[in-house]
């Protein structure tokens, strides 16, 4: 399969992840959507790297995965902290910045 197929796959997964971020009420559900989006980015990177012959893309992917892990850990820590303070994990209750 050509490069375009892999890119298309990544684009579709990205948009599904975006849909999840927009519509999910639970904060952890939003985090799952973010994971999907980051995953699709990785697929993109590796596909480009393979089809152009440059290994840099794969190294980029290693870094991305590591940082994603860190971000997930921190995000969930924040969710737990948020729950302790506001007694809820529902994202639509967190509207203190309402104008």
């Amino acid at each position, binding site marked *: 399969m050509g490069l375009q197929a892999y890119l298309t796959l990544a684009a579709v997964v990205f948009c599904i992840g975006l849909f999840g971020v927009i519509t999910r009420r639970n904060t952890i559900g939003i985090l799952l959507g973010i994971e*999907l989006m980051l995953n699709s980015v990785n697929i993109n990177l590796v596909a480009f790297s393979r089809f152009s012959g440059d290994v840099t893309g794969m190294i980029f992917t290693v870094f991305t995965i590591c940082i994603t892990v860190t971000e997930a850990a921190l995000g969930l820590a924040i969710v737990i902290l948020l729950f302790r303070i506001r007694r809820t994990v529902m994202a639509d209750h967190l509207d203190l910045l309402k104008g």
Partner: protein
Amino acid sequence: MNGEALAFWALATVLVGSALAVVLTKNLFHAVLWLALGLTGTAGVFLLLDAEFLAAVQLLLYAGGIVTIVVFAIVVTERLVGERLSQTSRHLAAGAAASIALAWALVSAVWQRPLALVRAPMAEDLTQIIGDTVQTRFVLPFELLALLMLAGLMSAIYFARPED
């Protein structure tokens, strides 16, 4: 259809299907499990692209680590809440419209011009090369990454410390 195409289509189906399941299931715990499946599918795609090291890393960190963390988080918050966390979604139509539009825009951009159909030649032992390159050309980002992860770890522990 050759083997590679077959594998691609199978993995694509798994990936897309589990992604849809992640965002659409009502039960959060099920969503996490579907995510695990999707991440495994991604690992398969990496294998298809000759990136064995990355496939391993993906399985270890993503499918293993992150899923575990999320499960723990769910358990903790569910316990604290004291009930089953249910999922109801809102603004499905608007979100779907935006996502589909974006997907269409991206896909049409990708298919605008013909891109590479044949893989470029690459070395056999990619793992070796990745290791070498990280330690030589990208050693600085590597060290900074370690620092970043340390900082993240410490702050996560600090955030989630028991109240006293």
